[in-house]
């Protein structure tokens, strides 16, 4: 994301102009824009024109509109962001108050106006515009008959393709069907890789599996590439990295990202950092349960005691439909920071963010134990 203009006054009121450069930036935009904000962008509008004779024709014109957002829609797979709202700046085609739907697109600038830019929003803009945070990575987690082809960017893990092929088991006196099935499975995964991995952007392709699946697969893929003289695969040979995972399910990505081989090759990715923090939380929960809490109620209590050392919050909580709800979490973040605590905002699109989401979305590691808090029942928030 590129920031082209920023004007925010001391009360937090103001506007920022942004240029999404890749699909991930639309995810950032989705997390930034809240209901009630105003967005200016270029768009296409169908207009009715009445000719002198009285017959009417409709045509499409490109125009710049500003709407006050009433509904936000994000398609994760396509990375398409759609905003719906009323026009707030009248122009020659569109009346004041008329409804319009804006599709934000890559490489098309938009301006976001907020009455109050809170710390979390500003931080999001900054991190989205930080070019050092980009480490595009593809990962194939697989086991016999099952593979997930994922794209891991700093803010998202997207499953591009799920491959499922039934492989007959080995049978007495007939290992052939098994081998045939295996090859069919490998072929499908290769197809998936070719279709979904853009080798020009991706710096590294992780192939992870239990046992020897990864080795067997890689060997097979390179053989096939040789046979068919597949330049893409042959030229990018060096980008493949084989790692161990305990299964072929998507969640095994967590183990993969923590693998020393991977962390050595890729400077700390955001995804790996989140896995590590969550891991630390669970370890604390085991060794010193009175220093690890989750759920808004418990975490707020801990914060009141200025006890929070590390706060983990899922970004999904800041997308709350009600402004008040977002404010609760923004205040929590600010307060923890004021008290010298560390705040980690997890992307709900990464595997560990998904898990944190299910764990009420908020968790904290404390500086000192609060055994009394343990006794209090957790409420059924969320």
């Amino acid at each position: 994301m590129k920031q082209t203009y920023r004007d925010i006054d001391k009360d937090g009121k103001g506007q920022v102009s942004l240029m999404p450069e890749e699909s991930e930036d639309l995810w950032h935009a989705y997390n930034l824009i809240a209901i009630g904000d105003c967005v200016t962008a270029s768009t296409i509008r169908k207009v009715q024109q009445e000719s002198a004779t009285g017959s009417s024709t409709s045509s499409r014109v490109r125009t710049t509109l500003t709407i006050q957002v009433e509904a936000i829609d994000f398609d994760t797979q396509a990375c398409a962001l759609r905003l719906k709202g009323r026009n707030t700046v009248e122009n020659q085609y569109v009346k004041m108050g008329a409804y319009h739907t804006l599709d934000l697109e890559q490489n098309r600038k938009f301006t976001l106006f907020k009455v109050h830019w809170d710390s979390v929003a500003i931080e999001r803009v900054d991190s989205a515009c930080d070019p050092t945070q980009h480490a595009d990575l593809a990962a194939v987690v697989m086991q016999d008959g099952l593979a997930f082809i994922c794209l891991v960017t700093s803010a998202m893990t997207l499953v591009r393709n799920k491959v499922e092929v039934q492989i007959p088991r080995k049978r007495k006196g007939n290992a052939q069907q098994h081998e045939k099935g295996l090859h069919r499975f490998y072929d499908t995964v290769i197809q998936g890789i070719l279709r979904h991995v853009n080798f020009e952007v991706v710096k590294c392709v992780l192939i992870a599996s239990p046992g020897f699946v990864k080795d067997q697969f890689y060997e097979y893929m390179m053989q096939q590439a040789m046979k068919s003289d597949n330049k893409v695969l042959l030229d990018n040979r060096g980008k493949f990295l084989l790692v161990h995972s305990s299964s072929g399910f998507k969640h095994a990505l967590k183990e993969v990202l923590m693998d020393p081989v991977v962390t050595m090759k890729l400077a700390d990715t955001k995804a790996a950092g989140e896995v590590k923090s969550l891991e630390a939380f669970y370890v604390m929960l085991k060794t010193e349960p009175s220093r690890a809490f989750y759920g808004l109620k418990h975490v707020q209590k801990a914060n009141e005691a200025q006890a929070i050392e590390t706060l983990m919050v899922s970004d999904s909580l800041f997308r709350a439909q009600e402004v008040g709800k977002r404010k609760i979490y923004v205040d929590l973040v600010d307060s923890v920071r004021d008290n010298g605590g560390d705040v980690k905002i997890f992307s709900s699109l990464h595997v560990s963010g998904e898990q944190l989401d299910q764990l009420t979305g908020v968790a904290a590691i404390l500086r000192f134990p609060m055994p009394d808090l343990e006794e209090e029942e957790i409420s059924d928030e969320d």
Partner: protein
Amino acid sequence: MSRHRSVRGLNYDEEYDDYYCDAYGHSVEDSANFCASPGFEQQYMFDRSKSTAMGDYIVGTNPDEEDDDDDDSDGKDKAMSRRRLDSVHVEFPSNLSPTSEARLKECLEVLRDISGESIPEPFLLNAAIEANYDSNIALQILHDKPRNTEGPSIDIVREGSDASLDDLKAKLETICREDKSARPKVLDKLAPSTSRTASSSKSGSSCSTPRMIISPSPSLSKPSPRESHKAKLDPVAEYEKERKSSQKQCLNMVVIGHVDAGKSTLMGHLLFKMGQVNQKTMHKYEQESKKVGKQSFAFAWVLDETGEERTRGITMDVGLSKFETKTKSVTLLDAPGHKDFIPNMITGASQADVALLVVDATRGEFETGFESGGQTREHALLARSLGVLQMGVVVNKLDNEGWSKQRFEEISHKISAFLTKHVGLRDADVVYIPCSGLTGENLISPPTNDALKSWYSGPCLVDVIEKFRPPERPVSKPLRLSVTDVFKGVSSLVNVSGKVECGFVQAGERLLIMPQAEQCILKAVACENASSGMTAFAGDQVVASLAGIEAQNVSLGSVLCEPQCPVPVATRFVARLVVFGIEIPITRGFPVIFHQNSMSEQAMVVKLIASVHRSTGEILKNKPRCLLKNSSALVVLEVARPICIELYKDVKELGRFTLRCSGATIAAGMITEIL
């Protein structure tokens, strides 16, 4: 009354299965109180001995009793005609005169024409004999007699048994309309328009399985003794006739243990000695393994059949084989020992009745396998939690230790302490055998080696296998055949292999595949361990040939059942977890992999309802924040897509599961409620 005795013996097995069910996975600390309170157990465990079924089972084999019944059965002719039929012997009578035989064949022809494939052959045969070869009377009998094993109410559903899927949908719809709670389980799949997850999240009562609504099965509800008597007789009698009289007892045995303990070698050698592998093949394996420098793996090649397994010298998937002893027909499942292949080991162990735990006696090797990172413990725990109650511990490679008695005893003691204290096996159900899979010592005959002979006079491996007691087979429950493999046959039929978990099945039957909700016709069933090709019973490993479906409509984890008794399908359920020695506590939102038989699926612990006492089941804390190692709890689980499950108390085999995460088994569980 030898039969009585054997029946009792079986019942005894079942009973202590229930009794000890809670005992596995205990930590040393709480081993003192590992027997479960009867009250709690009763709530969750199905115990046949508590119903009247067992009495009926025995009574049902008494011919006098049958006659009595016939005499006063006028009012219930429908049910009775069924019963009379079932008591007729199905075999083509050998004493038939040529004319009778011709008439019988003619009659059968007519019946086949009319019934199509909807009625299995043995039933036609039965009816024909019953009707004295008059096809009209036979038809009447067939029409009156629903061949199902359930109560009489089944007639309504069974009528026109060759119903299309649409009819089935409609029927299920009508049935389920009477009870809303049944709707989401079966119908959602059948009516794709309704959102399954959304609608199934709110229902779930005691009456949640469609089976119960269609016809309360005798084993699940509390019918009057007479009713259950009739309903039970059929499959049990069939089973008795087919299996108990002529054939050897079937036994499914899994071989488990740490990688390189010598499991495949031991079994390969055993199979060779039992004459299951001919000299020529064995010679070929010896030559070929020598060529690739893996000579010591020649015997393992009997079971490790894929190229990958042979070149790496490591078992990856379960190897299936069979052999016969004096009294038993054994299906052998050679499990992979490597950590990464535990999902396959789970597949093998969930099909097994008993297990052989193989350990490497070599100094250092035993210790590695037995440490917390080794698979010896994990395998034993898994096997126990998957229903294995008897175990033979093979202290293997004792040749490496000069057949030392001291080493044998040292290892036996260590394992014994672990098995009884942590795993929850009874000492009496575990046997220790010194062996060498490589030299073949003490496999099928008493030791010949002097060093071993000098101190060992116990049984050899085959004797131990001989002494295993097969568990009682739940033949009278509704059919559940779980699929472990799908492959192509010679014809256009789809072949699946799997295990009949309960009930029985006959060639010619129309079956329902869940959760796909596809119908098919069973063209043939071949049992791995019994010679009969027509019928398969609970406990059998079978290959079933299916017509009328595509291979992609069956998958690992599919369950074949009777259309009128579909297996429940769900994504959310309540389960009681027994947590193993985990490194990281389990919280809500915890992602896990759910393993049930051969199926694995992404799942999540969505809610921790309460932590409970491991033995008594007493609630210790509501809504705990997390579950620590060796604890026990009630949780809500959600799997990523609909799967076939049963309550543990109804069908154990489909009601238990294991949870894994990051390559470790973190818990075993029993399903207590379907949501």
